[in-house]
């Protein structure tokens, strides 16, 4: 396992060009119900606040603020790009799949058909100390999704 497999170019790109970043600059679309979740990893200080807007069973918008390592920031960016436009059920199942891959210690391969750009985080699964970095925004999204749909 080389460092380049962990830090794939797509991750480095997303860590700099952050899709969905900036809560204050984006208003949730009219007529959507929203959920917002703040997640913090006290070990390293990674922090993400993510808001998700849903209408008619579809995720209309995912926006977030965060501070942390390249893995955590890129992961939030990829998630917000990937999740927008998905149905609520679809996003739930993608989150479940992402979690399964990340927690597998490298045993479960990522399927780009399901995970899209998020498949690039497959390498993180082999670095136990970094799994939480990749997961933090996904945990926030799951929580926000539950709030928005109940």
């Amino acid at each position, binding site marked *: 396992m080389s460092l380049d497999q962990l830090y794939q170019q797509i991750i*480095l790109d997303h860590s*700099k060009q952050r899709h969905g970043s900036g809560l204050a600059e984006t208003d949730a679309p009219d007529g959507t119900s929203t959920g917002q979740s703040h997640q913090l990893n006290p*070990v*390293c*200080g990674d922090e993400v606040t993510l808001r998700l807007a849903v209408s008619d069973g579809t995720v209309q918008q995912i926006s977030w603020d965060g501070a942390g*390592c*390249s893995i955590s920031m890129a992961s939030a960016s990829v998630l917000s790009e990937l999740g927008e436009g998905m149905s609520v059920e679809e996003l739930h199942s993608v989150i479940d799949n992402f979690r399964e891959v990340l927690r597998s210690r490298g045993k479960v391969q990522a399927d780009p058909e399901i995970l899209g750009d998020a498949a690039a985080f497959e390498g993180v699964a082999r670095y136990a100390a*970094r799994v939480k970095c990749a997961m933090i925004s996904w945990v926030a999204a799951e929580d926000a999704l539950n709030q928005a749909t109940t």
Partner: protein
Amino acid sequence: MTAVSTPASLQRSMHAMDNAEVLRIRNDFPVLDQLVNGKPLIYLDSGATSQNPLSVIEAEQEYYEQRNAAVHRGAHHLAVEATEVFEDARQTVADFVGAQYEETVWTSNATEGLNLISYALSNAALWAAQGRGGSALKDLAIGPGDEIVVTEMEHHANLIPWQELAFRTGATLNYIPVTDDGILRLDAAAEIVGERTKLLAFTHASNVLGTINPVPELVAMARRVGALVVLDACQSVPHMAVDVKELDVDFAVFSGHKMLAPTGVGVLYGKQELLNALPPFLTGGSMITTVTMERAEYLPAPQRFEAGTQRISQAVALATAVNYLTETGIDRIHAWETELGQRLVKGLESIDGIRVVGPASGSERIGLAAFDVAGVHAHDVGQFLDDRGIAVRVGHHCAQPLHRRLGLTATTRASTYLYNTTDDVDSFLDAVSGVRAYFQA
């Protein structure tokens, strides 16, 4: 006249440490002899925890193989032997920091030592309120209107126990700020430490900034107003000669695992009259004189603060670690680490986009350096270095308020010890110089 040859130990004490000696020292540390990610391990995280020489590991094993028994109890042979090595260990550690035997209390670590003082002090307030413990305790009782003073550069272990003591007693917690260069603002300290100050707690050396604080000046401020002084000596005792009597602090704490000993053992030093006046923190077996169904009378220090079966093997191992440091020479170790620390800071300062926190090179510092890399998070820096076999600490190093003050959430820290060579530092600097390019920052 006959020629007298100089003993080897004295010869060694006369010359400074060098890489050749460090490489010999390194042979005593089995864990350092391994590959990490295919590269020789370069361990630069001794500020978090240090490694153990074989003699320390063997001391613990020997204790279990030959002497294991409950101390201070039982008349059998093993119990007597175990008690003897346990108490000898206390004397060895006491001598190392200039303390008296009775003033040297075993704890689990420095954090427990600080909590012990904090709880003993709030117990003092409870006892005094009920007329228990005599007049000496009235002076020690902290209450509403009193002030506790810490500094902005404290490790959480020397901050939170005082926040909680303030909460329990109704006292107010104040702090001495630091300058942008990570130096305590003594001008402000002189204002903050006032008539109402009952306790001043500060670190001897900062685990993030590397700053060595001016103990005499701070003690003098506390003495003027009759405040107690608590010294966090975690980053000083393992690395430099510390004499608690000369420093004239009331309490001092340090951890064994940061000075070549195993985890699970630390030391609290306290002036004898203070320790014996204070109520205990933990109560139970081994710390009492007479017990009835209603109440108990307590032994004087150190047993007063050592309830329950103690960490005997770790204490014995800590004494062995102290002997290792003494035989190498703590002043020589300090000089070597100062050199490594300056090399670290100077090297980092010359790399584009690196900001070292704390005093600049050339200023007095301990042998560590924490820094920010522009455009790259500390966690990523640590991962990049680990890939090259280099172990450093990343994060807030249990000093969130200090990082906030510096405008950062996390830094990367390299910290040295007697088993690090200048080559370790140079390899580290070489690796750091490639970080920003790798992350395209």
